[in-house]
């Protein structure tokens, strides 16, 4: 019997630190209070079980200016999970589908 892998249901996102990331975190914490945010100096690490959902309309309201997919992707340094770019939102979920 070979090595065994431990499954993980946690999804993560790493955001380049700045005012955009602060707004993303503020919106996320109100919609997903179970999410965990850690400050690593140059970046913020966000974690949640199952999924992370980023509503860009809400983030734009928090920032006080329009906020679109390219601008969000400019600060998304990394993630774990399957990403799905939608019309004005980005979803990272733990389920990988073909």
């Amino acid at each position, binding site marked *: 019997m070979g090595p065994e*892998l431990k499954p993980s249901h946690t999804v993560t996102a790493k955001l380049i630190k700045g005012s955009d990331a602060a707004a993303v975190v503020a919106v996320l914490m109100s919609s997903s209070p179970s999410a965990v945010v850690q400050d690593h100096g140059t970046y913020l690490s966000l974690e949640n079980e199952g999924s992370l959902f980023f509503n860009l309309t809400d983030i734009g309201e928090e920032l006080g200016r329009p906020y679109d*997919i390219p601008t969000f992707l*400019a600060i998304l*340094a*990394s993630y774990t999970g399957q990403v799905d770019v939608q019309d004005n939102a980005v979803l990272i979920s733990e389920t990988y589908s*073909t």
Partner: protein
Amino acid sequence: MSLQITKAYDRIKALDWEPSYISKGQKVVETTRFHLTGLKPLDPFKTFLREYFTMEQEKENRHYSILEASSRLHSGPRDARWMEAMKFVLGNLVGLEYAAGRQMGRMARSLAPMELRQGYMMQMLDEMRHAQLEMNNVRQNMRSWEDPAGYDIILSGAASNVGGGLFRSFMEDLTTCDPVETSIGLQIFVETGYSNVFFVGMSSAAAAHGDDPLASTMLTIQSDESRHMANGWATLALLLQDDRNIPLIQQALDKWFWRAHVGFGMGLALVQDYFMKNRTESAKESALRWVYDEFLGGFYQKLERYGIKAPPHLDDQIAELDSYSHSAAIYIFGAWPFFYHRADPMTSEDMDWLEKKYPGWHSKFGWFWDAYGRCTDPRDRAVVLKELGGLPSFCEVCQRPLIFPTPDKHTGRSRVIAGKNHIFCSTPCETIYINDPTRYQTDKGFYDLYEGCELSEVAERSGYVRDDGQTLMGQPVLQQEKMWTLDDLRACNYIVTRPPPPPALNPELVAAS
């Protein structure tokens, strides 16, 4: 009112066409052993050129603003150990990025589905961007670092350096293997598995050592890697739809997880444990968190439902985390005349930290640092490489020296295959060789090039000499009264000698498969 992304995406896809001026066979150029016909691709990011260029422009505006500000504002002194080590790191990294760009060109040309082609073409542009960003860092360091020697030859240094052979063999294998397999090696392991530790984790490390420009460079590069990770999953998701691909995927995953562990993970571990002063976590802690928990648990494990098995050498890889950064340090510090940076040996503070993070460190590796400390002054006419009996053999697959996991208990071996003796560092490299023997033939290994040469001759032929024609770029310490010169190396009278091959552990193979 513009179309929403999902609707626009479907409209754009319908614009694809087959060119009339070239046949399909001529267009594809390279064939693949994987089965691709009739499969349904996906593109999670659905990126259009318009959005791509907008996004990249936003990134450049933010990044170059930071570079501009850092040239005027002084956030703190730059640490010398880090800045010197980046002479070795950045040259090799530029080569990796450029090679990745070439790989994407091959994949875009060879793989049919338009959704994947779009992603690969953008990744090709990204990789060229990354090489340029890193070269910009090099240029900035050449102009501003207190000792630019080494930065000025960084690309030729990486191309010829014995330590850089590890990275060159890795990227050359990636650039020339099956064009679908290259996705598994690069996008799954380097970009999904390891690049997180490197670009994200080390951005904090760069900032902690006063290297703000590199911190910003690494983060902005990693933001592109997000789409590369999605390219990797999109390619794998395509392949997994055809059961005939499962054993081919398994073989590629097994090979490239090991090669990434040696060719990328090990270099990273060396940087984290030995090229930093302001450390937070050890290389082992970092690898366990980012690679073995997050990547394996959050991504790789999910492939099991498609019939993919766990990496066969996983336990060995995890076990090596206890030692491979330390053995790598013995190599790179011990062979300092073959490199082009000033080394900063471990202090008693460093050694206390290493003992705390790796209990038993001093009893296993302290002997080397004691010997090193006795061989730093050129007036003593002793170079540590000679005192320790010279360099060992090198693995013909991965090019790492036969000192892993530790010099006294290494897993290196010989094997006679088709009448010729070959040297490997481990069972995984031996297996990789046997599966594809013609790929790893060379007559330009370190001993083929330098056997019988005196040490100063190697340094001179490599171009690792400063403008005065005598003083070496590489030095065993950062500062001392007298720097080592070619004459000092000659006085040590060390001749490069090919060591006897290690014993064979497995029977002779008449012919490899």
